[in-house]
């Protein structure tokens, strides 16, 4: 199809043309900035590029001023090979191996179209990993939905789960963990975050830059289609005649088969040394890839947009620039190596086309059938977008929320009440078994999964010979973050850190996915500023750097924002995966020990949520020094094979931990409530920096000594009996007993009853 595009010459000749910048999400001041940069009005193609690249999602314009804390407060570490700012951070895990990992949000698409939204979330994060030169080895999904029994949750959750499974299973990546949390605050705005982890040798790191004048720019992978265009169709329909197709689907459609080929093809061209620079195409598609590659390299690039292979020949140049069609990559290749590069693409049946070359003109020039439609300094598109220091202020309601302490909530007063409360909580959606979900994910493929859900963290073997492995956990309690965003972020970090340590891995590095409401709301911006500060401070205190992350704003329905939900992922290293510690109660006769200090902390707890629908007060005290000491004990105990099981205490308190340890392999235990401790507090409070471990009777002294050496309180609380019951006493003068079959039935029934 031929129609005259809006060329640079047109823009100069017709400066008066009105442009729909506001409908593309640009503010008047931003549009003026573009005109100043260019010294003329932008062409419609340029307007398309700036509008997507200067969007909140791509430019971090509201968050940048705060995110700089992650760099400013970076702890001293020699483990970080590539830091924030690249596609994903790279961490040294020893023996010449490195690991790259990152988590991103796909919240809004997943609400509109759950299956494809969640599927393409996996696809996008996996391409970030391969563009660093790493082989992806696992994925995880932190998910949050509205009320479990809300009809719309029945629409969203099964679709999201099927999308994650449908894409991840077909890619051949084990799904090793994640979270599923329900809260009414997510009803109109579920959170679908996706984490991927990849491994590589130190020498295999690749970065996104277009180096070497005269080198060729290759677009390879899927053809470009009309999916994920969103706003670009406005340009097409408003600026030009209305003869062409206008409304395009806003949500991208995934093809995991092509992505699998893209993984193998990309790793092969990288290992063959055929690539000078590489970039995945995600949000903002070709606009992003060309402007970022150019501004990170020699500074210029000349692109022939009509060389881009299309799925739909009617696409306009603006739409091609903005298309978020999935499964595409861009590589910079020398002319001498282009034939070898294309041959490997052909071997994998991957479409590949040279669409341009690297220049040193300092300009990104894009042609469409001979007409110049883009002529811009690439840095102004990719890096020099607007930066906002948005106003923020402590919300007027924060004091009242924190003053609404849970002291008056009715607690169980008899053994029977406590027994029934526990059963009710075990079957509540946030604590119930997630098997209905996780059995839709392949956790075995690649043959290196050492631990997967429902363990504390996923553990993946990196090196089959040495046994080197990594552990990963993602966590966040949004209720804690709502009560106190600063400490809530630290608590999320502490939980992920503790989970990793519980498997025996030493925590090394942090990624995050910061899910918040509108940055234009000072209340939300305050939550964001507090959470970022808390996370940065926490990472400095624990000595583990943030390697990268993602911000998702505008998670709200009308004026009501979600709970601030700073999801934190922690990566740890374990020298020999054979020594990893599982959560299941071990041998009959093993002793059960509680590490850490129990306090009467129930504000924001699962008990307050399930039993009283209450949220108020201050979250549990966060003591990162205690967390660090606890982690040292857990890691040392694993290395010395001192313990047979370990499980961190978090949502649902100690009793939930005991239930999970018992149900894992159907092994019962007898637990004693320590003298002078209230049974309710002992079982249901959510004091942090605690873990339960089991060990053989003849190793108890060593474990106690180890804990003592690190200043971690330790208490012997029971014995693994191997019976069919979990017994706890004395509670209000009686011994409570829950049959494991009953617990299993209650825990397993919830999801099938809700979701079929």
């Amino acid at each position, binding site marked *: 199809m031929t129609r005259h595009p809006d060329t640079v010459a047109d823009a100069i000749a017709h400066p008066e043309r009105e442009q729909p910048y506001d409908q593309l999400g640009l503010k008047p001041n931003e549009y003026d900035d573009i005109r100043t940069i260019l010294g003329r009005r932008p062409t419609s193609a340029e307007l398309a590029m700036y509008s997507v690249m200067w969007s909140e999602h791509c430019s971090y314009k509201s968050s940048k001023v705060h995110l700089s804390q992650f760099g400013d407060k970076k702890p001293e570490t020699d483990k970080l090979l590539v830091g924030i700012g690249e596609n994903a951070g790279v961490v040294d895990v020893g023996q010449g191996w490195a690991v790259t990992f990152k988590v991103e949000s796909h919240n809004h698409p997943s609400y509109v179209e759950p299956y494809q939204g969640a599927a393409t979330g996996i696809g996008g994060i996996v391409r970030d990993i391969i563009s660093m030169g790493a082989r992806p080895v696992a994925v995880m999904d932190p998910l949050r939905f509205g009320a479990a029994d809300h009809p719309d949750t029945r629409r969203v959750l099964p679709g999201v789960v099927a999308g994650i499974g449908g894409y991840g299973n077909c890619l051949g990546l084990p799904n090793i963990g994640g979270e599923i949390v329900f809260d009414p605050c997510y009803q109109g705005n579920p959170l679908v975050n996706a984490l991927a982890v990849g491994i590589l040798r130190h020498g295999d790191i690749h970065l996104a830059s277009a180096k070497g004048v005269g080198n060729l720019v290759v677009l390879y992978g899927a053809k470009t289609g009309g999916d994920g265009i969103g706003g670009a169709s406005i340009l097409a329909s408003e600026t030009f005649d209305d003869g062409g197709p206008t409304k395009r689907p806003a949500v991208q459609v995934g093809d995991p088969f092509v992505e699998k080929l893209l993984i193998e093809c990309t790793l092969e061209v990288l290992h063959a040394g055929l690539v000078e620079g590489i970039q995945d195409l995600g949000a903002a598609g070709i606009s992003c890839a060309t402007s970022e590659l150019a501004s990170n390299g020699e500074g210029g690039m000349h692109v022939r947009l009509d060389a881009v292979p299309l799925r739909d020949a009617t696409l306009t140049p603006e739409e091609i620039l903005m298309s978020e069609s999935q499964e595409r990559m861009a590589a910079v290749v020398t002319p001498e190596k282009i034939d070898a590069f294309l041959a490997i693409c052909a071997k994998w049946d991957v479409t590949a086309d040279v669409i341009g070359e690297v220049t040193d003109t300092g300009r990104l020039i894009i042609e469409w059938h001979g007409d110049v439609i883009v002529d811009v300094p690439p840095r102004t598109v990719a890096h020099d977008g607007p930066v906002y220091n948005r106003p923020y202020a402590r919300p007027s309601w924060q004091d009242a929320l924190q003053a609404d302490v849970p002291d008056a909530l009715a607690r169980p007063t008899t053994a029977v009440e406590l027994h029934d409360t526990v059963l009710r909580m075990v079957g509540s959606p946030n604590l119930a078994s997630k098997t209905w979900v996780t059995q*839709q994910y392949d956790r075995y493929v*690649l*043959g290196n999964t050492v631990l997967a859900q429902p363990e504390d963290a996923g553990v993946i*073997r990196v090196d089959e010979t040495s046994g080197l492995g990594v552990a990963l956990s993602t966590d966040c309690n949004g209720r804690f973050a709502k009560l106190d965003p600063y400490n809530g972020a630290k608590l999320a970090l502490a939980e992920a850190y503790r989970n990793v340590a519980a498997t025996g891995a030493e925590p090394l590095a942090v990624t995050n996915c910061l899910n918040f409401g509108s940055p234009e709301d000072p209340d939300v911006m305050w939550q964001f500023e507090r959470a970022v500060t808390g996370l940065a401070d926490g990472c400095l205190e624990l000595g583990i750097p943030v390697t990268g992350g993602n911000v998702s704003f505008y998670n709200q329905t009308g004026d009501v924002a979600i709970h601030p939900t700073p999801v934190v992922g922690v990566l740890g290293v374990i020298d020999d995966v054979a020594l990893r510690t599982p959560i299941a109660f071990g041998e009959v006769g093993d002793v059960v020990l509680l590490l850490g200090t129990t306090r009467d902390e129930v504000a924001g707890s699962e008990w307050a949520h399930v039993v009283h629908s209450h949220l108020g007060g201050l979250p549990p005290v966060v003591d990162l020094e205690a967390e660090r000491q606890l982690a040292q004990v857990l890691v040392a105990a694993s290395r010395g094979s001192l313990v047979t099981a370990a499980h961190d205490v978090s949502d649902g308190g100690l009793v939930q931990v005991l239930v999970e340890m018992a149900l894992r392999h159907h092994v019962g235990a007898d637990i004693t409530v320590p003298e002078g401790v209230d049974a309710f507090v002992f079982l249901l409070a959510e004091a942090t920096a605690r873990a339960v471990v089991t060990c053989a009777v003849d190793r108890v002294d060593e474990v106690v000594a180890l804990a003592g050496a690190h200043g971690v309180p330790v208490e012997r609380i029971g014995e693994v009996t191997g019976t069919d019951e979990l017994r706890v006493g004395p509670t209000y003068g009686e011994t409570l007993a829950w049959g494991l079959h009953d617990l299993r039935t209650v825990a397993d029934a919830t999801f099938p009853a809700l979701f079929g």
Partner: protein
Amino acid sequence: MTMRIGVVTFPGSLDDRDAARAVRIAGGEAVALWHGDADLHGVDAVVLPGGFSYGDYLRCGAIARFAPVMGPLVDAANGGLPVLGICNGFQVLCESHLLPGALVRNDSLHFVCRDQRLRIESTTTPWTSEYTVGQEIVVPLKNGEGGYVASEAVLDELEGEGRVVARYLELNPNGSRRDIAGISNARGNVVGLMPHPEHAVEALTGPTTDGLGFFTSILKGLVEA
């Protein structure tokens, strides 16, 4: 002399690394075979691994059966070469008419990944000779289209000729007729299995090591032959 077991990689094969690892752990040499190469390179047996060949957007295995490597493979299988198709490999064998019947969408309509108890029903195949009849094993199962179907006559024939190799116990995960998890051809050299023995060869990464027997069986049989 080390036995050489070929593992075919189609576009979209996923468990090829796992199958090769299982061969190595059992003591054999794994030989990578490429879908576009119509040559078996003199291997002593072949594993068609799990995955989603060509994305399985059409009927599972329907495109893979036309891959160049399948020409010599079908001829060799008809000539007695031992072939094990796991999951997607089983589907490819059915599409290639080396095995009867077909695999259809799970009756639950969901993909299912679980540790599955099986009973070994036949030890006369070269892939199961190290097991005992009636032996119960636990190996991972993971499929979206794993329900085995065939006509009643074919099912009766399979049962009558002792060609049901393994059966699901405790729970039928996908609606397979007569709880069938695996079958063989009449000669016994070609076996299709929906569960994944290659994921149960190391205590560290599998639920058990019960799957190793498939790989030690073939290697032992080849040595003795």
